[in-house]
């Protein structure tokens, strides 16, 4: 197995004491107020995600799941409530520390891929490591390994516009895991993909989760949610259900 994926295996030891939850969200609110009307996009959410879990957040559009995701990814700030990421109170962090959290602790996969068009696949994957200050040689090696994980090491020197949607999303997945973050957040990662590419990307998530990665994924497709261990449903900014998927439940028992 590659170096990229080995980094984070330690908390999975069966005899380890219960680790800090990766996500610990309490009474989270996000209210948009344009002076005319108030929109309560996230309206009192409590959520606890332990290390190694694979959680799908479901909901119709406008249910607040994307806003929720942006807050979890430190891309947006909540109006009120507490958010601890890997034990750190995010609200207490300054601009620089937030950058560091986004860089080190979170790997983001977007629906629109969000690769930088002027850079090759490898350069895109190297980008988070560049901001982390990883030396060039190590960066090259880790980017190669990450692209190998997503099966794209042969296309490392292609620019995004020379890759299919599925391939672009796999590059984005490689980019999200390259700094060995505690959490991979995927915002409708298969929303722009055909069924074959969807299957490829989801297989990679399964594989990563099997190796101990914590994954939180947003979707409105039942087939996608069915791949996760746990499904959280949202409506009108609140969590309306939180259930475990039966067959896969046993698989990650060690984590709890």
């Amino acid at each position, binding site marked *: 197995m590659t170096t990229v994926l080995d980094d984070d295996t330690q908390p999975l030891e069966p005899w380890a004491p219960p680790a800090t939850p990766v996500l610990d969200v309490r009474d989270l609110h996000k209210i948009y107020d344009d002076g005319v009307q108030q929109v309560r996009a996230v309206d009192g959410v409590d959520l606890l995600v332990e290390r190694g879990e694979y959680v799908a957040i479901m909901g119709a559009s406008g249910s607040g799941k994307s806003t929720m995701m942006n807050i979890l990814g430190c891309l947006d700030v909540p109006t009120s409530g507490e958010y601890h990421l890997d034990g750190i109170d995010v609200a207490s962090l300054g601009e*620089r520390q937030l950058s560091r959290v986004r860089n080190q602790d979170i790997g983001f996969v977007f629906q629109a891929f969000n690769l930088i068009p*002027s850079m090759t696949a490898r350069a895109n994957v190297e980008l988070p490591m560049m901001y982390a200050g990883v030396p060039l040689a190590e960066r090259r090696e880790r980017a190669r390994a990450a692209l190998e994980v997503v099966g794209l090491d042969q296309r490392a020197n292609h620019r995004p516009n020379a890759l299919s949607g599925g391939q672009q999303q796999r590059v984005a997945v490689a*980019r999200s895991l390259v700094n060995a973050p505690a959490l991979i957040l995927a915002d409708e990662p298969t929303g722009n993909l055909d069924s074959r590419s969807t299957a490829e990307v989801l297989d990679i998530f399964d594989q990563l989760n099997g190796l101990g990665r914590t994954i939180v994924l947003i979707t409105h497709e039942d087939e996608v949610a069915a791949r996760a261990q746990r499904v959280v449903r949202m409506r009108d900014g609140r969590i309306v259900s939180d259930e475990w998927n039966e067959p896969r439940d046993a698989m990650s028992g060690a984590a709890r």
Partner: protein
Amino acid sequence: MSTLEIVRSALRGMNANKLRSVLTLLGVLIGVGSVILLVGVGQGSATAVADQIGALGSSTLTVRSGGVSSGALRYQNLTTTVSDALTTASQDGTAPSIDAVVPEVSTSGTVTYGTESTSATVIGTTASYFEATTADVAQGTGFTQNDVDTSRRVVVIGSELAETLFGTADPVGQSIVIGSTPYYVDGVLQTQDSSGIESSNSNVIMPITRAQQSISGYGDLSAILLKATSDDTVDTAKAEAASVLNSVFKLSSSSDASYTISSQTQLLSTQESTTSTFAAMLTAVACLSLIVGGIGVTNIMLVTVTERTREIGIRKALGATRGAILGQFLVEATLLSLLGGLLGVVAALIGSRFSILGIEPQIVGSSVVLALGVSIGIGVFFGGYPAARASRLRPVEALRHE
């Protein structure tokens, strides 16, 4: 993120949109290049005027007949009596600042050598002409006071005239015909700055006695050249000459003078002020082109940053700090304007090797520094300001930007 990394990502940014980068470069290049070159042209023309003043001799005064007083033109003949009076005054201590007095008769004549024939200005003068003016004899010799006293048929010719008549052959010792009289060529004058008002390059200089006898007749002098003892005594020499002339012409004061004493520098001061107006105009045009270039850069930088707000969002989501974002765009803007500016300097240096409007441009160091500084300043400010604004956005806002 190291400086090298920032420079590398800036280069990648420039490379990603080649056409836009090239257009930006071009804007800066033209702005900087034209400022340096046009200021250089202005400087070159000023230097040319200064050279002309030097070539004419700044310690020389010219006395001509005719003067204006109370709106009326007054005229009294300038005769050898006048020049003799000045000579006496310069020798007996009445006019100590006057070093030499050179009477001059001037007329035009047809000069012939073999089959070559051309018209030239013929100046009859004394031997001290060669000391009083900047006309130096390059080949052969000038004539002597003895030649003047004996009215010998010898001439010294200008270099241009020598070339017209003799080509590459040596004119010294040859015989030329002026009017119908043959003359021996004693010497050839050194080539003088041809842009001067009174170029002597196609003149014929001969003893005044011979000129009066054969060509001009025993009439009035065309002018009397006065040489002051030094550059600093020109004004004193002028006053002394005026008082001598007033007594000769029996005038009560210089205000109703029937003569004019002008210094060579005075003749050129008009031209000099014209030149400086010209230079100021060029500089204004140049600054305008720098401003236009600057607006182009500003526009392109604004578009670049606005268009890449989404990229800024992506980079922030991946953990780029505000400083890293700002650094990338600042370095990109600085590199573009620096590169454009340097290319502009190179273009101006190449352009300055050619003569523009008949003027050899001279590069002025301060204009190089100023033009480069302004262009880089524009690049940094107008590249940096929108980038700073974009880098302050929350990632989610920047990402929403299409």
